[in-house]
């Protein structure tokens, strides 16, 4: 397997302005030093609660948000070093599917225009070929040809999300960021769209960075899973290992908090106290120590390093002092 995407120490700080001269008075550290690798044809699920920086990370990887620092290497090219023109050319291989199928389609364009737009922008094929491609794409996402001349308001949420997916596939990308693609949909429609995404992975070999707050949704589509908290990846492992044995105290709490749709299985719940600290003023040391049930004095002082608690071929990374040697002694 070869690496498609490598992200090294990516940071995205948003300046907060205030005071008399509208100076930068603080930074919101939305993404604070995230590193991971994504292999060709695999999907990395990114899970975390609102404000943890998962959407910002997804956009920063595509440079839709200009990262503050770090490296993003896609197919061997460092995206951070590209100028505008070169970046646009590279955008052909990377696409995004947005969360809100109501806001991400232009209400004034027909479905045909919307799906065809990427082909027009990158000047691919003749007009006749483009039309044909659009029809093929509709077929892939399971919509009928008759919808082409209609407008977004005529469709349900699930259908709109299919249209958004068709648009993202227009340029045959090999990498797609899917930012909460099903969270605006009802459950009966959610699984239809998830099945579609799973099929695209299998049949088209597309790699996804799949962002969601829902661990169950993430499990269905992901090969690897990263858990984010306050701008950092706190755990990163294969989906199988992570769901079988979550190691980070935050991941454990997150898993136990999900309501189980079975009245006979009352889950043993780890209830976390308090709220997520502000990313403008993250706590020193481990970002999770303020709510962690296993916090030690050491956690308040030092940022935990990344520890591999798995094996060499099957890494399971945890950023937690519970697994470091200094803390144990």
């Amino acid at each position, binding site marked *: 397997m070869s690496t498609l995407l490598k992200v090294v120490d990516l940071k995205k700080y948003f300046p907060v302005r205030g005071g008399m001269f509208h100076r930068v008075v603080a930074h919101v550290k939305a993404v604070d030093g995230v590193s991971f690798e994504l292999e060709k044809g695999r999907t990395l699920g990114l899970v975390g609660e609102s404000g943890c920086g998962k959407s910002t990370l997804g956009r920063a990887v595509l440079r839709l948000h200009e990262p503050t620092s770090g490296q993003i290497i896609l197919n061997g090219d460092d995206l951070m070093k590209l100028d505008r023109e070169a970046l646009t050319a590279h955008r052909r291989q990377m696409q995004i599917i947005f969360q809100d199928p109501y806001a991400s389609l232009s209400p004034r364009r027909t479905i045909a225009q919307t799906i065809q737009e990427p082909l027009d922008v990158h000047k691919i094929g003749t007009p006749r070929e483009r039309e044909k491609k659009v029809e093929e794409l509709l077929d892939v996402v399971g919509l009928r040809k008759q919808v082409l001349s209609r407008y977004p308001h005529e469709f349900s949420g699930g259908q709109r999300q299919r249209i958004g997916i068709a648009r993202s596939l227009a340029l045959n990308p090999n990498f797609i960021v899917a930012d909460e693609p099903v969270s605006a949909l009802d459950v*009966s429609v959610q699984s239809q769209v998830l099945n579609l995404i799973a099929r695209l992975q299998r049949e088209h070999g597309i790699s996804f960075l799949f962002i969601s707050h829902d661990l*169950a949704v993430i499990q269905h589509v992901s090969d690897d899973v990263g858990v984010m908290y306050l701008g950092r990846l706190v755990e990163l492992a294969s989906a199988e290992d992570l769901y079988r044995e979550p190691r980070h105290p935050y991941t454990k709490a*997150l898993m136990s*908090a999900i309501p189980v749709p*079975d009245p006979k299985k009352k889950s043993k719940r780890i*209830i976390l106290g308090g709220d997520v600290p502000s990313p403008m003023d993250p706590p020193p040391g481990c970002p999770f120590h303020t709510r962690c049930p296993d916090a030690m004095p050491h956690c308040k002082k030092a940022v935990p390093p990344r520890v591999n608690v798995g094996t060499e071929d099957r890494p399971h990374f945890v950023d937690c002092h519970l697994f470091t040697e200094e803390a144990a002694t």
Partner: protein
Amino acid sequence: MSSEHTAPLLSVRNLVVEFSTRYGPVRAVDDISFDVYPNETVGIVGESGCGKTVTGLTLLQLIPMPPGRIVQGSIKFDGRDLTKLSEKEMQEMRGSDISMIFQEPMTALNPVFSVGNQMIDVLRRHKNLTRRQARELAINMLDTVGIPAPRKRIDEYPHQMSGGMRQRVMIAMALSCGPKLLIADEPTTALDVTTQAQVMEQIVKLQDEFHMSMILVTHDLGVVAESCDRAIVMYCGNIIETAAIDDLFHKPQHPYTRGLLDSIPRIREERVAELPIIRGIVPDLLHLPDGCRFADRCPRATDECRKDKPVVNIDPVTGNGVACYHPMG
């Protein structure tokens, strides 16, 4: 829980709620009947547009009229028919006998008044208290719902609080006059899972303490499984199934309930290739089919289903009922 000895606290019969739209009248709630007994928690579940929220709002006559209108039916609470009360009598009822908490705590609280002021207003409206007494009571309530340092936080404004905190304030406010019935409309949908777990635990605990009945309106079957005694499943304005919670989850009768339960993404032992789905989409309320409204999506539908609409027949012993000609058995 449906006991023969006690009379129901709330008894809804043949309720029809209609909204006039540009395209003609839409029946958001179409001939529903149900009971809520003292100390009981009843879940109303269904997907967007099924009429669950309108049902909750109609009980307190909070739907905008016009365009909304109660076409027929009765809502008996403690022996009085709420549909026959004047607006003034209804105001007496709201907040004191029946309270409601809403999905979006930010829009439900007034941003220009401190939390304390809003709570004191509610208390003084329904109880004969001095400002000082009301304030003490409000501080007590904030403490009861688990807000740290309530004496200090009572003077804060809604924007100074986190989502979970605001929802606690809403709960404190709703419970401050000791209502007999609490209507909770998606109380945790806007919250993160870890916060959701905190808030739901609190609601269930308080319900016990205050000896209230509760109607929990939600799309989340997981939340229903964990906190309700009985549930009502709605589809296109109709009640299609009602059952004790264990029966509903372990022996669902209606094919829609079955489909809904199957399609919830849940954490599984093994990743599955295809999630079970309910095919098709919810029909448009303006163009409803004559027979069963689920027939077009139903794997068990026959000609009979398309001709006449099935009605719910409640079993007098179990209190369960289903509107289906071919129940799952």
